[in-house]
């Protein structure tokens, strides 16, 4: 089990962190998706190809590396289809048809993955997908379809014919969703849907993003507690603030440990992955929201204002917590895996 980053992983982290600090500072995230940033992220850092095998143009790294990258994009509240494309890359590596991978690895194609089953007649797809992550920004949609041969994954060009999509305003101001209606949209089968592995990896990937969100929120409020004065003292010197921050730190330490473990399991220990993945969502999703909430509250009134960034973290944390379904599903999964 490997819970600490290797020197290479630390380098990756620094590279992504440094890039995002310059290219996508917090002051910019309300402007939404910037395709140029996304292109540079993939071009200069090759992030979109991180977990894509080298033969398809990726760097063949593992979930551990993807987790490092997602932690940073999470901490930066990066807008746009980076997470959804990573989700899709996870799925696309597990189906026979790998064509999509090359486009993603090259940074040409943004994608999104949805779990809503669509109808597929071998050439086109029909169906309504009520909440597609980054559905307005993604070029391609991958979704499961029930066919005579069982469940297959199909791929649809979202800018193509037979596709209607409309933006959905959501709580999260930094990343949108879309309603997508497929009405005979040309579709291509990527092969049978794997029996397992996708959902678990999505749990891990999302937990990595959540780890970044909570870390950045904690860092921000700790910094504020060192400069904000009330009643003649820095607020961080009051135990009412300090003890809460200490508890938040404990959650962060545990969350990071779980994310490292789950990413390691995805790469190295498939038998442990289902339990690790459910644990990651059950713990990290909750911890991320709690830390984001408490960080907002500790700002006092200013944290309640629209101008302040605190609510961006709070809202992303809540949106992430329910992104893969009501959080209880992860607990129920754990109960099953523990044979309780």
């Amino acid at each position: 089990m490997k819970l600490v980053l290797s020197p290479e992983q630390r380098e990756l982290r620094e590279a992504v962190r440094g890039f995002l600090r310059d290219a996508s500072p917090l002051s910019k995230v309300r402007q939404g998706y910037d395709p140029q940033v996304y292109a540079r992220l993939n071009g200069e850092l090759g992030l979109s190809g991180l977990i894509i095998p080298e033969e398809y143009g990726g760097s063949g790294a593992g979930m551990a590396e993807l987790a490092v990258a997602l932690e940073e994009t999470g901490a930066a509240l990066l807008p746009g289809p980076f997470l959804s494309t990573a989700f899709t890359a996870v799925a696309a590596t597990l189906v026979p048809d790998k064509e999509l991978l090359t486009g993603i690895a090259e940074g040409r194609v943004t994608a999104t993955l949805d779990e809503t089953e669509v109808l597929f007649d071998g050439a086109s797809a029909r169906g309504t997908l009520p909440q597609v992550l980054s559905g307005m920004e993604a070029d391609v949609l991958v979704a499961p379809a029930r066919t005579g041969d069982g469940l297959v994954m199909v791929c649809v060009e979202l800018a193509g014919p037979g596709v209607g999509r409309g933006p959905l305003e959501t709580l999260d101001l930094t990343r949108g969703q879309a309603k997508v209606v497929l009405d005979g949209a040309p579709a291509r089968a990527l092969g049978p849907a794997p029996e397992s592995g996708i959902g678990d990896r999505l749990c891990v990937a999302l937990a990595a993003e959540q780890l970044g969100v909570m870390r950045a929120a904690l860092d921000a409020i700790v910094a504020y507690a060192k400069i904000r004065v009330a009643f003649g003292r820095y607020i961080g010197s009051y135990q009412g603030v300090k003890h809460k921050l200490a508890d938040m730190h404990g959650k962060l330490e545990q969350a990071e440990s779980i994310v490292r473990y789950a990413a390691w399991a995805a790469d190295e220990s498939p038998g442990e992955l289902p339990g690790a993945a459910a644990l990651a969502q059950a713990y990290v999703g909750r911890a991320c929201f709690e830390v984001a909430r408490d960080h907002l509250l500790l700002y006092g009134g200013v944290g309640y204002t629209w101008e302040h960034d605190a609510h961006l973290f709070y809202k992303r944390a809540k949106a992430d917590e329910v992104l893969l379904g009501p959080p209880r599903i992860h607990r129920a999964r754990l109960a099953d895996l523990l044979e309780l």
Partner: protein
Amino acid sequence: MNLVEYRRAARAWLQENAPSDDHPETDAIARAKDFMARLHDAGYSGITWPRRWGGQGLTEAEERAFAAEARDHSLPTYVFSIGLGMTGPTILDRGTDAQRERFLRPLLRGEEIWCQLFSEPGAGSDVAALQTRAVRDGDHWVVNGQKVWTSVAHHADWGLLLARTDVEVPKHKGLTMFVVDMHHPGVTVRPLKDMSGRANFNEVFFDDVTIPDEHRVGEVNDGWSVAVTTLLHERLSISSGVGMGGQKDNPAALEALRTMVDTSDPYVRDQLVELHIRSRALALFNQRLAQETEAGVFPGARGSAAKLLLAELTLFQADLATQLVGPEAVLADHPLSRVIATAPGMALGGGTNEIMRNIVGDRVLGLPPEPRMDKNVPFKDLKVGTQA
């Protein structure tokens, strides 16, 4: 007229006169003012205030009786709430007779709207650290500075302003209270959006705003003791309203939530039980405080415990509801989206949870106070606001 008759008459009047719209929108202001005038004509505005200043000279018993009846209606009194609950009582307690004469009757009749100007960006919980300056110039004062969290400032005719008049003395000792004309050219009101995107309060900027000395409330440099009067009234008016309803229309309350989620799931069911337990516990505590008040035992700082618990319940149930409903809950047109986006408000407005815990600890439990670093330092040497 005995209390039963009084209440019956109030009920009848309200049934006849209470409108349904209470949104403080622009064109609603005129209607609200019209309603207040009728309320005053009917004898229900300023029930306990002295007759001499436009009140009814009755007792708290009548006021409670009217309030109990009013709970069944949505009265358009929102824009007057600061005046009625805070600034008016302050003028009544601490103003001169000339000020009472000038300000109270128009306030009670809804002819003039008031706001309260204490908090500043650098002085939130620690109100007395405020930096807005008022400098004397003959028989006037000249004010420069910035206030924040000011409800209804964009509608207000008058503001109760706390400003610093001496920086050479410790922070509580160099403050003075004024009534400021909100229509003065140097006053700029800028709406301030809350985290849900709604403009619920304002920033107010003062740029060489002059105030005649006869609009000073209380002595020069005695403004803190006047502010304490105002804040006491604020706390009373908040704590009396706490937990009294509000759940009826809350989409995160049990009754609404049970229709949105799958109650055949035992986990969901138990979470709803938890919500029921917490909601009932606080509702019963509030009812007990109300019964004590009716019996003449004033809750005092215990109201801060109720406010703290309401803040926590508000956060808990918004969080729980969105978890149970899942992905849909974050769609902007889902009712819970707004609930989760405003849930922190109760924990931040009217004193943070930390301040509430200090109040409960100090005043209810009688615990020793935190040592104060800021009591005996001249204000100009004191660290305030946000700085390294």
